[in-house]
């Protein structure tokens, strides 16, 4: 099962779904077609916005870092934030907002604790550049990377409940050591959370 399959399994048919940082609308498009959800995306990149509109998706041009106060409490069944939290200026605030707006939320993070990242830093003594993190420290969009442990600590500090979690290796598979020592072997983690 890949990440999108997991997300699909965690969302009920015909739910109201908000995807914060929806990119080109790939996830929302699949959810709309396969689950008949009512979808709304939030995105900042003009090309991505146009892609979403092209797919017939509803999408709002808005900078998540400038606040989400236009979305009222528990106004969506599910809020998705996939591979987005690490590019935000205020990830903690965003996490609180996500759980305020959604009855449940699904957050996907890249795991900075992955062994390849650790090894890269250990051996080269420089900020890791890996397949999952291909840019140099000075030109990466990822300004707030965290490990699986970090994320779970933040959730606990914020009083956010982790309802479910799944871990994937670099090929998007859930197998082997990824499941035993996720903080060292998972490339990606998906959480279902609520507050």
């Amino acid at each position, binding site marked *: 099962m890949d990440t999108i399959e997991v997300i699909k399994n965690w969302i009920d048919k015909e739910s*109201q779904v908000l995807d914060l940082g929806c990119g080109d609308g790939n996830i929302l498009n699949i959810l709309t077609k396969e689950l008949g959800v*009512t979808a*709304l995306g939030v995105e900042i990149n*003009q090309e991505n*916005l*146009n892609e*979403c*509109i*092209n797919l*017939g*998706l*509803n*999408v*709002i*041009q*808005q900078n998540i870092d400038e606040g989400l106060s*236009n*979305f*009222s409490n528990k*106004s969506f069944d599910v809020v998705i934030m996939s591979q987005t939290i690490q590019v935000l200026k205020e990830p903690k605030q965003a996490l609180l907002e996500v759980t305020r707006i959604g009855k449940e939320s699904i957050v996907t993070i890249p795991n900075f604790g992955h062994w390849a990242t650790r090894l890269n830093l250990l051996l080269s003594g420089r900020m890791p550049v890996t397949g999952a993190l291909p840019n140099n420290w000075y030109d990466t969009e990822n300004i707030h990377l965290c490990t699986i442990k970090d994320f779970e600590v933040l959730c606990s500090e914020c009083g956010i409940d982790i309802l479910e979690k799944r871990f994937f290796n670099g090929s998007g598979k859930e197998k082997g050591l990824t499941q035993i020592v996720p903080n060292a072997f998972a490339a990606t983690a998906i959480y279902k959370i609520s507050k």
Partner: protein
Amino acid sequence: MDDSLGFVEASKITLNGSLDLECGKTLKTVELVYETYGSLNSDASNAILICHALSGNHHAAGKYKGDKRPGWWDSLIGPGKAIDTNKFFVVCPNNIGGCHGSIGPSSINSETGDYFGPDFPIITVKDWVRSQAMLSDCMGIDRWHAVVGGSLGGMQALEWSRLFPKRIKKAGIIAAAPKLSAQNIAFNEVARQAIVNDPDFNEGRYLDKNTSPKQGLKLARMVGHITYLSEEAMRSKFGRELREEKLNFGFDAEFEIESYLRYQGDVFSENFDANTYLIMTKVLDYFDPASECNGELADAFKSIEAQILVVSFSTDWRFSPERSKEIVNALIEAKKNVSYLEINSPHGHDSFLFNEQDYVKGLASFLKN
């Protein structure tokens, strides 16, 4: 690809029946001029209604024979353009109260045989939308693929989606606002005062007296024009350029911006009717759908079924992006289908008339499905 519509012609139609206006008066016969571009398909499902803004009219695209300049939205309407006339049948009427052929203050009142002049009733956005719905009936269009407009035109598109939810699939609301601010109304009032205080206004009966309040209309247009441009656009286009490279220590037009505004005002006052201008500003001032629902905009949007695209422009200070966001956020709250684009453009409020790439692409994508 040739993206020009070539030569176009206007048509005239008398609508079936009378029109009861929001002010309580009735227009017994309603004559509208309009233009169409492209062809209506067999099930009449490809029609797009274009709503014009304050000083606009039915001549949205293409050229009249002998004219150098095309219609006001030619940058967006034509073969292969954002509003693609190869796919869509595009209709643009001149609104009632206008001065380019549809019934308005400069028309003859059939009951009296005189010009309507100042007796022409005050119109509202709702009246316009109802008259446009009557036009749709005459044309055999049950449901518009889309209703699209900029500024005051966007307000009509929004009202269409509220008033006739079953008759509109999509609404393009561009550079608009859910209601005018005090500052917006203030600018309109300056324009109105300029007109009614022109000695040639003759309490609106200038056509009977064979005069024309051109000075007042010119001033009104000059004030309006300033609000359509951004500070940035004005600075880059005119800066402090002088017409004669030196100061003349007088009150003639010395700076380029002065001469530009005077010229724009002169051209406008030759081609526009003062009573129409007064009515158009009132239409703007009165527009306020939320007022029907105790100020709750989201409640005013309950009836909407259309898919909506709201577009704003970064340098528009007349109807700033914040004003568009009020519409967007109320639509989100009302759980309606809405998309929103905030386009970077230097042209201020007038941006909606320009061929900005992101804007054109977004609108084209929105309309195509």
